[in-house]
Every structure is written in C-alpha cells, then in structure tokens.
C-alpha cells in the first residue's frame, strides 16, 4: 500500500500540465472557467488537439490503438486538463460505446468506429431513454425490424445530450418481445444523417439547448451496425452503464469548480469582510472540499482494485460525484448574493452583451438549476441506491 504518486506518474502529470498549458486555446479556457456556453466547434477544437497527440483515447488499451494509460494516469489527465480549463470530453463515443465495441463488437466495427473515434471524426450521442422509459429503461419501445441486410427502425428517444451536433447514435432497440422485458433488446449503431432521423430541441431549465428528442421514422440501418448478438443488448447496456457512472464522478472538474468557488468567495463580501473568511460560509465550503477528497480517494480505490470493469461500486461514485457537483453549484450561486438574480442569456453565451454585476456571477443561478440534472441522469441517484441495496448489500 502506497498512496503517493510514483515518479513516473508525477512526470506524466507534468507532461499533461505542460501540454494543456501550451495547446489549449486561452479563449476557450476562459469560456470554461467563466461557465460560458460552448459551441460544437469548442468541443471539437480541443478533441482534435488531443486526437493529434493520441491522448483523446490515451486510456484505451494498446490493442485498440490507445496508449494503455492506467486508471491513475487517466485520473491525472482528467484532473490536469480540467484544471487548465479544458472542456469536458464528449464521453458518448470514447468512454461509453467504445468499451462495448471493444468487448462485444465485430472486427469491422472495431476497425471502423474505434478508428474514427481515435481521430475525433464522429460526434456520438446516446439513444437509451424514451418518453416511457426513464429509470425503467427496459420498457423501451423503439423497434428495429430485420429486412435482409438491414433493420428498419421506428421510435422516439429523448434526453439525448447534444444530439444536435451528433453524427452517430448508439441505441437500445427492441428486436423481439421476450417473456421478460429485458429480453429482445438489441444494441444498434445508427448514422444520425440517415433519412428519417429528426432532432428536436428540448430547452432546459436554464433556457439552454443541450438535450433533444430524436425521432426515427423508418430509418434504414445496415445489419453490420448491430453490436454483438441480436437480443443481447441489455447485457451490453449494463456493461456500458458501469463506465458511464465512473465517468460521471467528475472529480477533475469538481476540483476546478472548487478552486473557482474559492476565488469568487475571496472577492465577495459579507459583513464587511471577505466571504471566504465568513465562518459559516467557510465551514460549508470546507465540508464540500472534504467530501470531494473522500470521493477522489474512493475513485482511485475502486479503479485500482477492480481493474477496468467497474462493478456496482460505481454507483457510489455516481451518487457522491453528482451530489458534490450540485453542492458546488449551489454554494457558487449563493456566493454572489443578489447578483444571482439578473438573467442575461446573451452575456452567458458570451455574445458581447455586458453582464449585470460581476462577470463571474451571471451564469451561476442558471447553472445551479441546470446542474440539478446530475442526480437524475445516468440512472437517478434513487436507482443507484437500489443498485447498491440489491447488487452490493443483497437486500
């Protein structure tokens, strides 16, 4: 047992830090630090930079063209890039469908799609939830009927994050009706540019366009895009969810947000002194900082002990990670006092309109509301507690 970073890990940290500092465009980092809206090109720009370096998929095994980073290296990468102000990596391809393709995909799928992911060629999104299938995901109704060398897909997916930018979607679809609703589900990769695919924005509580409804109207999908065996989609979906939950812990980004919160608290005043020195505020801030320390250590513990396939313990990371993210957005909003109130979307978008009050204040309340999503998505925290109770505790 030795919880300190090795010399190699320290060197890797220095390398990532130097690279991020040199390569991340400062105006993009500014947007991230200030919680401004990011355009498609912002995400693509940073991912292209990483892809060129081979770091977009550095955590992939070497057999699939990655660099075989250890979980500790991935954590360092995540922490250092977040601290530098890098936008989050769109996870749906490289972190979510990629492990499924590696474990269950055919050779062509691995060559073609993983290859394109390494080069940041496709923007992926996730087609799981449906209007009638949220936490009860297996109730999904989108149907795929086999017609020779292709499927015909009809249905309606929802909550699809950034589908408006996407080239590809991975979907759970029903290919037959089994005795149990988990049976007869298949895992299908669909080109978003196919005829019959329609994306409609679903405007969020912060008035931002992040999520969408995606409609499939007789969409033709080649059989070559079926992952693994027909009817085994539920198994693959559960496999993927473990990765999603680990990814969702968001320790690197939360550390950056904590630092931002401290900066804001140092500038704000309460009772004639810095808010950071206000005992009540300082105590609340310290509590979140301690919780984050515990989460970070637990992430390392889970990743380094369980290897690369996260089990039900990943639910802890999702629960605590999301709760900490919310606590940070809440404290940040409270830190700016009455300047949480002015709502100037153009200022939040960085479109040149001046903010009311301090620059850092304008996005914070909207962001607080938007971040309520974190305990709902990726399997709500109540579902995560069910998983712990059943899969870990045997209740």
């Amino acid at each position, binding site marked *: 047992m030795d919880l300190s970073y090795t010399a190699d890990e320290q060197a890797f940290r220095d390398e990532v830090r130097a690279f991020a500092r040199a390569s991340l465009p400062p105006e993009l980092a500014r947007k991230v630090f200030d919680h401004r809206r990011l355009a498609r090109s912002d995400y693509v720009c940073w991912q292209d930079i990483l892809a060129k370096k081979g770091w977009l998929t550095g955590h992939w095994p070497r057999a699939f063209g990655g660099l075989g980073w250890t979980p500790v290296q991935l954590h360092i990468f995540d922490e250092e890039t977040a601290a530098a102000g890098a936008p989050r990596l769109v996870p749906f391809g490289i972190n979510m469908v990629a492990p499924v393709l590696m474990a269950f995909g055919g050779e062509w799928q691995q060559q073609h799609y993983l290859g394109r992911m390494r080069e940041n060629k496709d923007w992926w999104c996730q087609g799981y939830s449906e209007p009638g299938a949220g936490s009860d995901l297996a109730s999904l109704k989108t149907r795929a009927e086999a017609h020779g060398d292709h499927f015909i897909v009809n249905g309606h997916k929802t909550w699809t994050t950034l589908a408006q930018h996407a080239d590809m979607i991975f979907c759970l679809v029903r290919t037959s009706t089994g005795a149990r609703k988990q049976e007869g589900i298949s895992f299908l990769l669909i080109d978003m540019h196919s005829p019959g695919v329609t994306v409609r924005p679903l405007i969020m509580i912060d008035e931002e366009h992040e999520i969408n409804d995606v409609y499939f109207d007789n969409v033709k999908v080649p059989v070559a895009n079926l992952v693994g065996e027909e009817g085994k989609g539920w198994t693959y979906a559960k496999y993927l969810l473990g990765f999603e939950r680990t990814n969702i812990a968001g320790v690197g980004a939360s550390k950056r947000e904590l630092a931002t919160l401290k900066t804001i608290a140092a500038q704000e005043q309460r009772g004639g002194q810095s808010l950071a020195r206000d005992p009540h505020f300082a105590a609340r801030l310290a509590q979140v900082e*301690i919780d984050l320390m515990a989460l970070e250590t637990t992430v390392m513990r889970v990743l380094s002990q369980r290897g690369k396939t996260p089990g039900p313990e990943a639910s802890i990371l999702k629960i605590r990670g999301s709760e900490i993210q919310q606590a940070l957005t809440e404290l940040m909003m409270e830190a700016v006092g009455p300047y949480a109130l002015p709502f100037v979307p153009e200022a939040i978008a960085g479109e040149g309109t001046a903010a009311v009050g301090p620059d850092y204040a304008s996005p914070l309340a909207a962001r607080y509301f938007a971040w309520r999503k974190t305990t709902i998505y990726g399997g709500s925290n109540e579902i995560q507690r069910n998983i712990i109770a059943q899969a870990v505790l045997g209740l």
Partner: protein
Amino acid sequence: MDFSFNDEQKQFQESLAKFIERDYGFERRRAYQALPEGFSRDIWAQFADMGLLGLPFDEQYGGLGAGVAEMLLAMTAIGNGLVLEPYLATVIMAGGLISRCGNQAQKQALLPPIAAGKRIVVTALAEPGARYDLNRVETTATRKGGDTMLSGRKAVVLHGAQADQLIVSARSSGDSSDDSSNNVAAIDGISLYLVDRGAAGVSVRDYRTVDGLRAADITFNEVRVGPEALLGAEGGAYAAIDAIADAGAAALCAEAVGVMETLNALTLEHLKTRQQFGHPIGGFQVLQHRAADMFIHAEQSKSMAYLAAMKLSSTDVAERRRVVSAAKVHVGRSGRAISQASTQLHGGMGVTNELAAAHYARRLTMIDFNLGDSDHHLKRFINA
C-alpha cells in the same frame, strides 16, 4: 499509487479477524468489561504474543517495525471487535511519543515492557476546560533543585487508572492564557514528563465511559519527578504532541471504519431476517436506501482513513494536519449518520442494552469525542 495489502499484510488481517471472532464475541466482551480494570489482562498478554503491542516500535526495542498499513489493519480489527484494551492510549499514543521524543535509555526502559504487555503507559494531555486544544496546558512544571514539581489537572485520560505510568504534558514556561489570534506563546514552553501513576500527589478519579471503556480525571498536586522523567526537549514538546494526536486521530478513523463495517453488517442481517407484514423489512425501499447510505458512508470513511494514515509520515506537516483533520471530520459525521441509522433500523431493539449493535453505535458515536470532534477538526482544516 497502490491501495492493496501484500500477502503478509493479508495474513495479518486474517489472523486478527480469527482472533476477534474466537476471543472477542459480544458475551466475552461483556465479561472483560466487568473485570476490575474494565479489560482483560489475558487478552492483553495475547496481543503481546501476537506482536500487536510492539507493532510500530523499532525492532531493537522489541517491536515489529511495521508501517501504517499494519496500523490500519490492527485498528480496524479493534473496531470490528469493539476491543476494550488500551491499545490506542498505550501503543499508538504513549508508545508513539516515547519513540518520537525519548532518548536511548528511555526507549530501552519503556518500549520493550510495553511491547511485552508488562507495562501500561498512557498519555495525559487534555485538561478540563481546554476541550480538544492540547496546547492549552495549565499544568505547571516548576524546577525544585534538580527535580521538577508538577501541579495541575488532566481530563478524560483513557485508562488513566489502569496505567502504570502516565506521560503528562505540563508548562515549564510560557503562558497558556493565549489570545486566539496568536497562540504561539501557548505552543512554546510545553514539556512532557513520565510520571508513575502511584507517585505521591497523584490522585485519580476512575470511571466508565459511555462507550464501554475506562477513563480518569487526574490531579497532580506537587508531584516530584527527577530529571530522567523529562521526555524530549524541555519546552519544545508541542510539535510531538500535535503529531501524536494526529496519529491517534488517524488510528481512531481506522477503528471507526471497523466499527462501521460490523455495525453495517449487523444492521443488514437484521434487515434480511426481521419479518413484518409478511416480508423481510429489507424489502422496503425506504429502508434499502438508508442501508445504501450507510454503505456509502462507510466506504467514504475508509478512503479517508487510508488517506490520513498515509499522510502521517509526510514531511509536510501542514498537509498532514489538513488531511488528518479532513478525515476526522468525515469519519465523525459518517459515524454519527451510521450509528443513528442503525439504531433506527433496529427499531425498539436498537435502544436496548441487549443488542450488540447498540454497543457499536455507542462506540462509533463517541469516537468523535476523542482527540477532536468534527467541528474542532473542521476549524483546524479551514485554518490549515
């Protein structure tokens, strides 16, 4: 970065678990508690045979020279069994201070008998009214010829009445009436003295603690000690006291993790076996979610206990203090949450003295009151 235990450590862990299971069941513990000293000298002797009592000491003083991983495992096992013996007070705290501050002769005289289970030495550091601040020392050390006279009071000294010797902090110079903005004066001038519990002028009020241990309030009235009693540099003991308090706090975190593990297991067993409305009550989602939260608290606390233990050897003192305090805050709050949930989930039985879980809940709650509670450490964390 590596969180795993090696094979030797795993064997150590298994032998501890077997010992606790065989010799430290709930009924046996009750019997040990009823003994005059509130713990079992037989068990203490067995601990010595297992090498536990010299675990962290250098081999030349009869120890095993083990590291923090073994300390974590030992303290977790102590938590699993709700062990009553003075391990924290004697091995971690007193033994730690002697190892750190003692000269060759003192180490040679004290550590081997402690490791052999022949002598019990405990620390007497905190004072009435000083709460958890170990620099607020009003006990005085006054030179008288070649000797030193000690006068003052020490509060809630764990196993104070059962100890052969006490390590007492006293002020040989400086002022304890510090102002909170600058307590540099209160830190300088503190010395440590070895005092026989039976020495003239030492009076001991022995009592039970609510979590099943023994403690004492001790008064020192013109207690004469010779020059050989001084442990470490005169007036310069505070850094060592602070470090040992951190070692003790980290050990308590590990013990709490053991208590949490067992308390959660007992609670889970109850949820799976207790039938109401024709079903095991663990089938109810509202109880499942409480059990899930108990599990999360325990896992997060384990992470913090590991982290704190690893920082004990850090040369960066500020970082050590920060992380140990963070761990103590986290474990304190999680311990409170788990003990309250466990009591609630056990229903009426949870508030009876018959139930093992009730005793685990008591210990888990009261761990927070040793060496600084959550609020104390939250403040220390903020000021670090």
